[in-house]
């Protein structure tokens, strides 16, 4: 780690062989860096000898903003970090503050939260699948994925009026009751979705080009994953059967049965298979959850003004991209003294260097895709 490219200036291309290494500047405006990631690649021919990530183009100082907002005011900001999985961000934040307050959301709220979060996981994985396939040159899955994601976003829209940055949850529970027909919508989506997943599988899983492009590409074994802090599907693809939803259940996950898919090889293909299977499991969780949503209140005992007692708390959830943690320090006031967000994308991105060394430029694209980063979250 910590490789530095000394020579920042790009050499004239007339001197390609004169310079042993070619520094290729990928991004921040590049079609497949998923936003504004900039990667400086040290190339030997087309083989990558080293990388340096330059990030921060999307930095908005979210953690600083938190110090100047009340607890409720800050909640919408977290949606804007991982904007393809806003609901998960909100869940993590609300639960962290609830822990700080020592309150619990009522059971009904927790089940609805679980359903929405799992739908969001599917949506996030769909965005990942579409863009990842697009990076590898398959144009069509993107549109199929967007078609299904649209159904999920419609449910979100019906539930809280927003599609992308939903701010669906409130500290202490929910603001909105599930709308009439919520269960039916979710059920319809879930029943339909199995068939839809099969479409992606048909297009990609057995395709020899897809296998050639992903198998043995960007291998990250379990030890490396843990050392580099890589979590989520990346860790599971390396064969570690670990999921925060099982290890330290939050929301209502302890009530549902689901499997943790794991890979063996830790390569791009395994990560693909793990995420596909995760979508299936999320679908199963949703189906179980809508079976019986408990009746009752949706808001816990939280006052209009949130003033947690001084102290600190760390709470993390299994976001679609990995461990999403919130470390919140309170000084007893209405505004948090410090909010630290552990963004999974940021930490997963750190593994890029290790994964791409020795691979070709084309693999860099595939590996950035398989890391499933969202720059809004990396840069915060």
């Amino acid at each position, binding site marked *: 780690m910590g490789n530095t490219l000394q020579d920042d200036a790009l050499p004239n291309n007339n001197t390609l062989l004169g310079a042993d290494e070619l520094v290729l500047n990928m991004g921040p405006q590049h079609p497949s860096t998923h936003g504004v990631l900039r990667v400086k690649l040290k190339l030997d021919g087309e083989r990558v000898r080293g990388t340096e990530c330059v990030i921060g183009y999307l930095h908005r100082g979210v953690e600083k903003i938190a110090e100047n907002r009340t607890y409720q005011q800050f909640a919408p900001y977290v949606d804007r970090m991982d904007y393809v999985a806003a609901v998960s961000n909100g869940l993590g934040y609300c639960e962290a503050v609830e822990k700080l307050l020592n309150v619990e959301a009522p059971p009904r709220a927790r089940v609805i939260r679980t359903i929405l979060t799992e739908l969001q996981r599917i949506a996030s994985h769909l965005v990942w699948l579409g863009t990842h396939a697009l990076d590898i040159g398959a144009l069509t899955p993107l549109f199929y994925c967007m078609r299904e994601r649209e159904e999920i976003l419609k449910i979100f829209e019906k539930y809280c009026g927003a599609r992308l940055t939903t701010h669906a949850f409130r500290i202490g529970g929910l603001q909105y009751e599930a709308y009439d027909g919520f269960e039916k919508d979710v059920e319809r989506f879930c029943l339909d979705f199995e068939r839809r997943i099969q479409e992606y599988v048909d297009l990609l899983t057995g395709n020899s080009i897809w296998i050639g492009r992903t198998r043995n590409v960007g291998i990250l074994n379990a030890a490396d994953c843990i050392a*580099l802090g890589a979590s989520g599907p990346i860790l599971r693809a390396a064969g570690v059967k*670990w999921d925060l939803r099982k290890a330290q259940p939050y929301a209502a996950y302890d009530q549902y049965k689901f499997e943790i898919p794991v890979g063996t090889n830790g390569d791009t293909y395994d990560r693909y298979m793990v995420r596909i299977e995760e979508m299936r499991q999320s679908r199963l969780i949703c189906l179980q959850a809508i079976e019986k949503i408990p009746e009752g209140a949706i808001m816990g005992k939280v006052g209009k003004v949130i003033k947690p007692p*001084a102290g600190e708390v760390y709470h993390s959830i299994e976001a679609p991209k990995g461990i999403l943690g919130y470390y919140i320090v309170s000084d007893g006031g209405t505004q948090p003294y410090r909010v630290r967000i552990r963004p999974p994308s940021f930490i997963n991105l750190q593994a890029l260097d290790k994964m791409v060394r020795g691979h070709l430029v084309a693999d860099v694209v595939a590996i950035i895709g398989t890391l499933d980063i969202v720059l809004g979250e990396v840069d915060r």
Partner: protein
Amino acid sequence: MADDSKPPQDSPASSAPPVAKTPAAPASPAAKPAPPAPKPPAPVQVPLDNELTRRYREKFGPAILDALEDRKQPYLVIDSAQLKDIALYSRDHEKFDLLEDFTAVDWPRREKRFDLIAILYSFPHNTRLRLKIPVAAGERPTSLVEIWPTANWLEREIFDMFGIEFSGHPDLKRILLPDGWLGHPLRKDYDILLQDSAWVRENLGIESGQ
């Protein structure tokens, strides 16, 4: 040795305001005075004495300054001089193999104004432990990169946001903010106008754009 849970020690001993002590934030006429010190937290934290902390105390003795529990989440306050040894011990013997997060909190009125927070997770035991390392303003704590490679970017972020330099870090430079940025934003005395007025002075040739 200060910890935020101990109100008597929270107020700084020296009378100089903390702003003057921070080398990376140049004094600016537009800089606001430091925000008022946070109210001393009520003692929600309770001393912790379980097997784990006993083992740590046994091994490191005085380097474990305190062992507390806050909302059932345990944490150790440790001496920054012993950081590396304790980290190594945590990883290898206590099996805290994942450095889940590494960050800092600024307490400007305290003698050692920063707390480094290392959040450790153990896959075998499914437990978390927080290490809290008080660090003074000019101090250079040891880098954890060799123990947990994931600390690389996290330490860069701490440096970027708080100006804490780590000794032994392979490539310590700003990560989220541009290289020419002034000051370290997550310090409590950071003034957002600082950057703005510097830019205005440099590019427009006037004293302040506000």
